[in-house]
């Protein structure tokens, strides 16, 4: 399981001035274990999922595979919805990033599928500085949920974060490993 806490993310703007930092999930299988434990997870897709290549594929292809593997509800932020529809996937909900964070803060919110609050929220592709602000909000004001930033730039305000992966190849391996392990394991 995670051993270290996040000290220095890729972007200096996201350096933590505080005492509670994310656990770094070095091994993708540990990340899968976190997902497997979740009862009502949500996956937030930011605008970079449709704009960022990871090798010869787009980031959204990987994120969708992760979501599909556990039928995780998807929230499409920014203008991601259009591209998702082109890919034949209908997001479960459409909010902008700050709005979904605002709703996640409220434990009494019914969640995007009406099943109550989400106990785990995954984030991919949200602009890194904005994602970090949203994660800070949830860290302080949403004790009822955990956050997992699936982002190679790493996020100290999340509960769980991918380590800084400068090389795209390593990032791709990480994502593929996660997807493979999701396929080989079952939710708890």
């Amino acid at each position, binding site marked *: 399981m995670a051993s270290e806490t996040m000290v220095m993310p890729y972007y200096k703007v996201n350096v933590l*001035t505080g*005492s509670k930092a994310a656990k770094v999930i070095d091994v993708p299988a540990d990340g899968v274990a976190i997902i497997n434990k979740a009862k009502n997870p949500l996956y937030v897709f930011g605008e970079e999922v449709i704009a960022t290549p990871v090798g010869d594929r787009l980031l959204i292809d990987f994120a969708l595979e992760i979501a599909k593997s556990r039928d995780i509800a998807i929230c499409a932020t920014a*203008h991601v*919805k259009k591209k998702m529809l082109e890919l034949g996937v209908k997001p479960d909900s459409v909010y*902008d*990033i700050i*709005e979904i*964070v605002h709703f996640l803060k409220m434990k009494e919110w019914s969640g995007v599928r009406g099943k109550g609050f989400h106990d785990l929220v995954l984030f991919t592709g949200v602009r890194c500085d*904005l994602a970090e602000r949203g994660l800070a*909000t949830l860290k302080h004001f949403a004790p009822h949920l955990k956050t997992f930033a699936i982002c190679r730039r790493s996020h100290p305000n999340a509960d769980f974060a991918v380590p800084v992966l400068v090389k795209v190849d390593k990032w791709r391996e990480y994502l593929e490993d996660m997807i493979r392990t999701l396929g080989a394991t079952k939710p708890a």
Partner: protein
Amino acid sequence: MHSKIRDAEIRALIRADDPWEPVGPTPMPTLMDLRNWDLRLLSTYEPFYAPFCDLCCLCTYGKCDLTEDRKGACGIDMASQQARWILICCLMGTAAHGAHGRHMIDYLIEKYGEDFPINLGTQVNVEAPIIRTVLGVKVETLRDLRTAIEYVEREFIHLVSATHTGQEGNYLDFESKAFHAGMLDHVALEAADIAQIAGFGYPTSVADTPLVDLGWGIMDSTKPTIVVVGHNAVTANAIIDYLREHDLYGKVEVGGICCTSHDVTRYASGAKVIGPLSQQRFFLKTGLADVVVTDEQCVLLDIPQMAKETGAAMIACSDKISYGLENASERPADEIVREVLEEQKQFLILDPQKAAEVVVRAALELAPKRSAQKQLLTEAEAAALAAKCRGTCELCNRTCNSLLPVAAAVHQAGQGNFTKLGEVFRRCHGCGRCEQECINQIPILRLMQAAAARDTFKMRSGRGPIHDVEIRKVGSPIVLGTIPGVVLFAGCSNFPQDIDDVAWLAEELARRKYIVNLSGCAAMAAAMKKDDEGRTIYEKYIPEFDAGCIVNVGSCVANCHVVGAAIKIANIFATLPNRANYELISDYILNRVGACGVVWGPYSQKALCIGTGAVRWGIPIVLGPHGSKYRRLYMSKKEMGDWTVMDGRTKQLVDTGEPTPEHMMVVTESKERALVTIIKQCFRRNDTPPGRAIKLNSYISAYKQVMGTLPDDLQNFVRTDKDIPIVYKREVVAYLKEVGWQPKPVLSLPTIIGTYETKVPIEATIK
């Protein structure tokens, strides 16, 4: 606190017996007078906090860790600490504008006397709608503007006091105080801009102001070149006067960066706008300026060093930014010029006329000697400087708060390809952190000289107040909703993506018949995009305050005129009394005037303060992603919220079930999302069915354009089937059926007066 003595003082200051309107309930409101209004707003639009720092280090009990539900040694919790920080930042903004106004007004009183009349021309009778509404005074002379600034100063001390440890401790009260600071800021903006319009003869009562040149490539550096940086154009205007008096106007190049350039081009259209704040460091490093003149606000603090490096002279002109320089205000100009030229000394000169003389004489002397330093880097030179970069250490990327791919751009430049660096330039805010981190000391900002396109553009110079006659024309369609909204793009140039996104947003709205206004750095950025025929939006759209038109109101202080226009709609069109009637007017704006402010490149405390002030008036604000670092927004619970308001005619509470306006301050991630959000924030409860149909038509068309479908929250904003735009009728009806939509009430006089404790009687909302 009010006392009899203070009340009598206020009555004298506002000339209460002057019969233009009866004095309303809140002349010169104190911290407490509008608190109930604030708490009412905050009950619908709760503060949303995104802490930027988990610690507090304000006093020596600290550092205190406020993570999660911890409290500091003083007892403060995380939400209140965020709110306190917001108040502190808003106070910085108010102080910057207030001190600016104070300087401008004192300068003009010294020059013309306090009885100097304020005359804004034949088209503007309601001369100072903000000051009338907040203070209750009709501005007739410079003395009245000084009264306005003195009121700001008086309130200010109480607000600063509340930030001390062991003072205010509740986040909602901090927010109410931040609103108060924002409102004071708007008073200061209006006082400052009216003073400079009257005192310097800036355009007023004319819409069709001149088109001025913009862009860093516009500067003709073969001439002696003076660059003015900042927001207070007193010295810049004195430079123009000096040039005119000495037959040098046109022979010396004067260009400005940031708002001083707006105001100097309002004074002399032959002056040039180099660009927004984000291009300040880039430009100063080119060495094209022979003399750099700094005034105040958003001025880079390493200008003395940059000027030295390029062999330019440098004169500071504000007591707010003295840079440790000798104050030469009392010394003879000849002596100063000699030391500037012979010893490369830099000076602080607070006497604008003396500063102007020194600046111009130094520029004339220096220009012929500096031609070598005015040469821009060639591609070959830039490639040689970048050659050491392998693009792999990425220290530049990691330190870039604009999250730009600097490493790849510099690496490619090293190989002679400047395309990517050109793209980086368009998104860069010129902080210089990348080159500071570079292990190979590559001068990245200088490399951009070889990559940045030297395009030049046309921007309409700032036009100042919106005319009363324009308000009469658009008041009704705005309130009915048939003009879909009034949008103001204000603020700085900390843009999330390309600098021309503001132009894209402005045009998307103008072509949908919104009234689009711009100010400050946003107004400059909006000029930086041309259509296929080479025209900027200022050349393409009519500069009137009307549907489908585009207006540049002017510098940051001119933002007051758009808020002023919203007030004037209530006062002139709806004939509501505005004198000392803050809540009545704000309630009208909140419920009826479809206005929205946008700060797409937010960076300064001033922009935060302006935005916070706008919210107190009932005007929602949409921010670009960097706005999340302000750490506070105001958001409703949307369909989960309580949207009960009063029907002013029946005096009954009505659950409208309609989240309009949806949020009062919100960040959006992309320009596409911003477009649909801005459109939505212009919905008002008062929209008539035809008006709402027009607004929904815009919303649906924009949403389809950027998201590919009907809006997911359409059911929240369709009240009856009469609201459905005809073009989309069939699909909207099918969608509403699918989601189980139910009709909602349409009110003819929605108001929140009467839903909280206030001195304003509900009858006052009916006219």
